[in-house]
């Protein structure tokens, strides 16, 4: 005598094989990668996914078996994330980042970037004239530890030596420390943008002040061009990176303060993704700057060559970021 054959039972009989197949495919995808699946499996995957998804809708309407519903729900969810939620392979992601993602993010930040560059330049000029007019200002701007004797009381000879003598001690290690430190600051200035960009702007401005104060000290002893060459070899890359990091922080703060027609949340998300891409790029730039500093600055002591390298680096970055290219319309 046939008993009550409920939908859930009929349903399981019909589709359980497909579900199990999908489950094993998803399991393998989660554990390994796309390459672990054969061509047949890859062709099957979307079909099985759609079958399971429609099973879920049907089960929701007709079945009262709670564990069946829970199972279909979690299986569909896992399959969904493997099909839609996952990015392309790491290699391709890196490629895309360097080919389009990073430069177009920087391009998208051009307003903030010009503001940061202008702010840094202006603060530097202001500090330069302040320190020239009254050297006491220097001590108020640059912390003693960072100046390391390079203050207005130093002799021209001493200052010259700091520019051309290889420092004693492991310099590559120091350069690495500077790189990680600067990169941390770059990440900070991105994150601090969340506080309506105020700390980010302060950070950029202060950086410019220190720069101007130090230039003033060297310039007053007639070492201006020499310092410029010393700074340029890695400074063009480093200062540009700092400006980009600042710009990315500002973008978030501005989106939060002035979301325009979008909701505050949407504006922030859009800004956050562009800014994060640009910020990640500055970490790469600071790495390059660290290499230039650790190797180039010690072995190359010719002013002209230093300027040439620094200038070429700057031109290279600018061309890389702003050279018009195809597909630049769809910014990240």
């Amino acid at each position: 005598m046939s008993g009550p054959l409920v939908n859930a039972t009929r349903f399981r009989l019909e589709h359980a094989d497909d579900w199990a197949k999908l489950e094993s495919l998803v399991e393998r995808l989660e554990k390994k990668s796309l390459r672990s699946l054969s061509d047949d499996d890859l062709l099957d995957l979307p079909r099985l996914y759609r079958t399971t998804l429609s099973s879920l809708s049907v089960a929701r309407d007709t079945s009262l078996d709670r564990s069946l519903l829970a199972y279909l729900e979690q299986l569909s969810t896992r399959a969904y994330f493997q099909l839609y939620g996952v990015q392309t392979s790491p290699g391709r992601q890196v490629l895309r980042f360097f080919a389009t993602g990073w430069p177009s993010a920087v391009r998208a930040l051009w307003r903030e970037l010009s503001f940061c560059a202008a702010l840094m330049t202006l603060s530097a000029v202001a500090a330069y004239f302040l320190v020239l007019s009254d050297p006491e200002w220097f001590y108020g701007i640059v912390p003693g530890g960072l100046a390391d004797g390079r203050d207005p009381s130093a002799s021209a000879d001493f200052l010259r030596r700091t520019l051309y003598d290889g420092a004693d001690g492991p310099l590559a290690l120091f350069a690495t420390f500077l790189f990680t430190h600067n990169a941390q600051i770059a990440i900070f200035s991105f994150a601090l943008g969340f506080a309506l960009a105020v700390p980010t702007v302060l950070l950029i401005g202060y950086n410019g002040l220190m720069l101007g104060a130090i230039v003033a000290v060297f310039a007053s002893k007639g070492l201006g061009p020499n310092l410029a060459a010393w700074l340029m070899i890695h400074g063009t890359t480093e200062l540009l990176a700092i400006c980009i990091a600042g710009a990315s922080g500002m973008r978030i703060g501005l989106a939060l303060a002035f979301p325009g027609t979008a909701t505050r949340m949407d504006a922030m998300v859009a800004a956050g993704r562009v800014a994060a891409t640009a910020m990640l790029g500055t970490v790469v730039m600071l790495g390059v700057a660290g290499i230039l500093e650790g190797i180039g600055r010690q072995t190359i002591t010719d002013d002209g060559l230093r300027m040439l390298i620094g200038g070429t680096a700057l031109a290279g970055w600018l061309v890389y970021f702003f050279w018009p290219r195809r597909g630049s319309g769809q910014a990240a």
Partner: protein
Amino acid sequence: MKRRSKRPGGLRRRFVTPEGVDLQLELASGGARAGAFVIDALIMIVILIGVTLFLLYIGVQEMPEALGILWLIGFFLLRNFWFSLFEMGRRGATPGKRLAGLRVVARDGSRLTGAAVVARNAMREIEVFLPLSFLGMQAAQGVANTFLTLFALTWSGIFLFFPLFNRDRLRVGDLVAGTWVVEVRKTTLSYDLVGAAPRQRRKFPEEALAAYGIYELQRLEHVLRAEQPIAVSTVAATIRDKFGIPSDGDDYGFLSDFYAELCARLEQNMLFGRKRESKHDA
């Protein structure tokens, strides 16, 4: 199982796939996320201490420069990219999140981009590391006065408990990146309670079948799947007493037959558009 899932205002959220099916994701609870973070932090600390000890062991006297550089870069990568690298993977989860059964997802259902992952994790700098390093620096210089400590604690308090103050449990990083963290449980398909083989042995009075709705049916399913003798016999006794059915000594068989009958009946009514949520439903 997921008893609270239907409760409005819980952690279930609509999540419609391109095929138009609502997957109804369950957001991760604050506790699960905190647990995942603690696990990750512990792993990172253990790696850091382990590697440092190993390096010290190798180059005890003069730390070679190359090792120092490696250490610095390793520390930098660990601190900044541990979360990002794992969350960019196919699981969308760090080891800690994996253990807690969580996954990072783009809120709009689109692909979780690398930029979003980087954004949500870079925000950790001001949420966790800034107040921590601030406190550490102050303590190292011996100037950690009450005011500064209080300030740092308030700062991190605001950010750490931020997820508890919005209904989607968003961290500041989630807010900026447009992501949220959901539970992805792995469950296996449990056996079919009604069974493929026809095996109706008992008849039930009409009023007994008419008395219950979907809620009671699913509670019954829960009891049957849990297979705890005391619960099974209690429920069986309650139903028997209520409708005057004599006991035949097989509580589990009685209940599973009753389940099958009730299930068939409710399913059929549902097909005719008469959905009965619970026994209080008319």
